[in-house]
Structure formats: structure tokens, C-alpha cells
């Protein structure tokens, strides 16, 4: 684990150095990432030019959901978003070159092509979240303030687990990166809207099967003083870190199984 983190830092640092060799290009690609991902919020603003609330949630509260989803996903995408290319590596055989190095494969795959430009999405989400925090009219008591970074990190953890599990699946189905995108990019877009606009079945699935609801819907309900989705009891709002840890453990098991199957069958 420690060796994995060390190698991850080494590889990521190398990519950052190489990115910084072309500063203008870095600035432009970061700005592009900022703008493209901000279009999602523009879409929400356009809706609110016609309506006063979405599923009973006013603009400031939807912006709060959007900010949490965007920053959480942005952090996960920044950290290990490159993992979605694993299927490509399995197909062209370059995964073998990672297996002959004295470092965990997961760390090498996660840090590969570390893209600092992805900060564009995080920045954009953070700006929206910053505005929403002041606009939602919540009394920001100390516990609520302390909960914010916990929620963001748990959310990032849940998305990281989805990335890892998706990559593990690509050991078996090498063309599955699109399936993975449905859960990662699709997931973050879903979470930008209040749970009340979706059908109960979908909300159940996103809560109990693929627990993306714990990225923002569940903790945000507590922070905003709303009832939890699916009438869940109040204490569930604080379980995001546990859910993230559980997802992380499961995705770790899936990753090991995927790698083991690769090493017994080859490409």
C-alpha cells in the first residue's frame, strides 16, 4: 500500500512536470475542461429561467447538489480517471510491461497520464458549491462545516471505487469502458439533479445497489434540513464515509480478481 502510494506519486509527478513543460497548452486544456463541464450548470440555469423549483428544490439547493457531485467526481477523475483506459492496455498487451515492474499494477495504471487539466472540472464545481453554500440559507453550525470536507472526500472515494471496479471489469470485457462511463460520467450528471425528480426505483438502485446517493443526495438532505430520500432514518446521512470504505474494499476485491484472471489467462 505504502509502496503503491510512493510509485503513484512518482509517476504522477513525472506527468505533472511534463505537462508544465508546455504551460500554454496546460492553461488552455484546463480552461477547456472548465468550460465544457460548466455547460452542465448552464443547462440547469436555463431550466430555472422557466421554473422556480425542480422537484421542489430551489436553484440554490440544486446548485449545492451540483457542486458536491462535481467536486467529488472531479477529485476522483483527477486522481485515477486514467483507469478507464485499462481495457485498451489489456487489448494491446502493454499491461504486461507494468507487470514486470516492482510496483503494484493498480498504482501504475491509476497514475498513468495523470492529467492536471482535470482541475478544470474541480474548480468549476467548487465555484458553484461556494456560491450555493452562501445562498442556501443554512445555519452553518460547526458540525455542519466539519461534515463538508468529509462528504466531499467520501464522495470522491465512492467514485474512485466505481473507477476501480469498472477497470476490474475491463479485465474480462475489454470493450467495457463505455459501460463504465455510464456509471461514472452518467452517475455524476444524475446526481446534479434532486432525487425527487426521479422515480423511486431509480433512487432505490442508486442508494442500495450502486450507492452513488451517498455522494450528495443523502448527506445534502441533512445539511439542507430536508427529509432523506426513501424516508431513510436521519443517522444514515452520516454514513457516507462507511459506504465509501465499503465500496473501496469491494472494488479492491474486484480488482484483485480481475488481475488474477488476467494473469491466469493472458490477453
Amino acid at each position, binding site marked *: 500500500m505504502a509502496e503503491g502510494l510512493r510509485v503513484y506519486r512518482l509517476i504522477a509527478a513525472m506527468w505533472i512536470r511534463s505537462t508544465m513543460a508546455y504551460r500554454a497548452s496546460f492553461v488552455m486544456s484546463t480552461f477547456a475542461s472548465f468550460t465544457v463541464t460548466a455547460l452542465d450548470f448552464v443547462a440547469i440555469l436555463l431550466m430555472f429561467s422557466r421554473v422556480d423549483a425542480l422537484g421542489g428544490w430551489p436553484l440554490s439547493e440544486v446548485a449545492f447538489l451540483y457542486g458536491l457531485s462535481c467536486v467529488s467526481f472531479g477529485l476522483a477523475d483527477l486522481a485515477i480517471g486514467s483507469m478507464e483506459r485499462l481495457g485498451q492496455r489489456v487489448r494491446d498487451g502493454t499491461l504486461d510491461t507494468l*507487470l514486470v515492474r516492482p510496483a503494484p499494477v493498480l498504482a501504475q495504471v491509476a497514475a498513468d497520464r495523470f492529467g492536471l487539466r482535470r482541475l478544470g472540472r474541480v474548480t468549476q464545481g467548487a465555484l458553484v458549491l461556494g456560491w450555493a453554500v452562501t445562498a442556501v440559507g443554512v445555519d452553518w453550525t460547526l458540525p455542519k462545516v466539519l461534515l463538508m470536507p468529509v462528504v466531499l472526500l467520501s464522495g470522491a472515494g465512492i467514485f474512485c471505487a466505481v473507477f476501480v471496479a469498472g477497470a476490474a471489469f475491463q479485465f474480462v470485457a475489454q470493450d467495457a469502458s463505455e459501460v463504465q462511463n455510464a456509471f461514472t460520467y452518467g452517475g455524476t450528471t444524475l446526481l446534479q439533479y434532486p432525487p425527487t425528480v426521479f422515480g423511486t426505483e431509480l433512487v432505490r438502485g442508486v442508494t442500495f445497489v450502486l450507492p452513488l446517493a451517498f455522494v450528495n443526495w443523502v448527506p445534502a438532505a441533512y445539511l439542507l434540513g430536508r427529509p432523506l430520500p426513501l424516508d431513510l432514518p436521519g443517522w444514515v446521512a452520516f454514513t457516507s464515509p462507511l459506504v465509501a470504505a465499503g465500496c473501496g474494499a469491494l472494488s479492491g476485491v474486484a480488482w484483485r480478481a480481475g488481475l488474477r484472471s488476467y494473469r491466469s489467462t493472458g490477453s
Partner: protein
Amino acid sequence: MDVDKEEPAVDGGPGAQGAALIELDGVEKVFDVRRRTGFLKRERHEVRAVDALSFRVRRGEMVGYIGPNGAGKSTTIKMLTGILTPSGGRLRVAGLDPSRERTRLAQRIGVVFGQRTTLWWDLPLIDSYRLMHRMYRIPDARYRENLDRCVELLELADLLDVPVRQLSLGQRMRGDIAAALLHDPEILYLDEPTIGLDVISKVKVRGFLRDVNTERGTTVLLTTHDLQDIEQLCSRVMVIDHGRLMYDGPLAGLHEAGESERTLVVDLERELPPVDVPGARVVRVEGARQWLAFPADRSAAPLLAHVAAAYPLVDLSVREPDIEAVIAKMYAGRTVS
């Protein structure tokens, strides 16, 4: 003498000069291949890529590992490096179980895949080396020394700042070989290290590998399609076909076993009936060009003299037997007898 009895009687004990560094006992690898036969129907069948493979390689040896495509060469290398887990048998490299102790073994071996690079494709060559330095925890002085040496001998000085993707195949291969040697590996695996290289690059690569083996005592195991690689580098050659070891010994013995033939191609001044000289037979005639086969262990010089004396010779060349042909013959010989 009673004390000596405690010592294992294998190869003079661990760590001794000439001790077995690579040991395989009945190693096998079976793949489960699923083939689509209909919309949802799939047919399963087993493919035995490596079958009951046993051999030893001693420290400091330089061994050629050859065989036709699909014979199991790459599968063997992948098991020896810990990429693939064997389905059965016992496998030890430097005293380690490769698949279980993959990362520990990685510190002690260097691997070069001819077909794909281990370097970071989009980054300058030197960045890959810097990363290897840190990743393998190579002591600074050692790293500098090894890098300088590789840069000098493999002529990499002008290439260090070039992104790997812009390197030619020969340049990239030299870059890859250097990368595999920075951490002073005890064993160097090379999978087709000269494939696609021009003649000059091949000569450079071979010369360097010979130096590494003699000066550093690095054990080298290489797979190749080029018999000249073996001729110029390896005192020992192992031939694998259908996952089984067909031959293990010196290259000369392989020629005997396969009764292989070299080919003398002569261009005459004009179309003539098949050349008649002792010790060779014409296998093909095409206009003024004729192909003469002669035993591979016989010198071409007397044959040349005969042809030149009796026929109007314009040009000529000698072709070495290719491995596929040698093995095909050997295989046919064994099944008949």
C-alpha cells in the same frame, strides 16, 4: 565429511558460481479458449501452450530460446517474469516463485519486449530513466554509472530528450535495453530483441548484449527468429515446439539434429541448365538465377570455387537456414523415427 552431507547436492549449493538461476520442473500452462459458435453458444476447449517443460539455466549463461510462432516461447517468458501464473509444475527464478513474488522478482530481472516498449511512450527517454531510478530505488552513483555506460555504448546521447514515440524502431530498442539494465538485473529476458532492426542496429545490439553478459555476468535468455542472434551470442540453444522442449544444447548440434541446409544463390550471366557441382544440389532455377542447397555444417568456400571455375558467375549470396525450416525438419525426423 559428515558436515557436507547437509549440503544439497544440487549444482554446488545456492550462491555458488554456476548455480541454477532459473529452474523449471514439469511446468505447464493451459489456456481455456472459448470460441463463439453461434449467437450465444460458445465452444470451450483447452490449449496446452506449455507442456511439461523442464530445464535449468545457470548463472552467467546466455541462452537462445527459439521455436516457431505459437510454440510457447512468449508464454514461457511471461511465466518466468511473473506475468502469467503457471497451471502446474514447479518454477523458480533466483530462488523466487515468479507469480507469487512478482514485485520482488522485478527488482532482480530486466525485461525487453521487442514488440512493445516498457518506456513511457509520450515522454522523453530520459524521463523514463529518471522514473526507473526512483521506482527501482537504484543508488544514485550506481544509476549514474549504469546510465552513462548505456548511453555511451548504445549511442543514446542525442536521443535522451526525444519523446519515445518519435524514436525509430532501432533507437527505441536500444532505449529499452538500457532501461532494462539500469537496476543491475541478474537476469535479462529479451523477447525478439532484433525484430525489425536494420543490420547496423542488430550489430550494435548484439555487441552490447555480449558485453553485458561477459563483463557483468548477467544471465541472458533471449527468444528470436534470427539464427544469427543465436550464432553470435548464445553457446546454448533451446528449441520449443507445441509447448515442449525439442532440443537443448549447442547450436551446432541443432543443425545436425535438423540436418539443415544453407542455400547458395548464384546469378549466372545467362540462363543455363542446372549447375552441377559436388556437395550441392540445385533446388530451384529462375532465369539466370539458381538456388543450391548444401549442408549447413560444410564450408561454402570450396563450393564457390567449383561454381566460379565452371560457370560464368555474376553475383552470389549465401542464405542461412531459418529456424522454422530447421525445426520443421527436426520435428518431421522425430515423428518418423
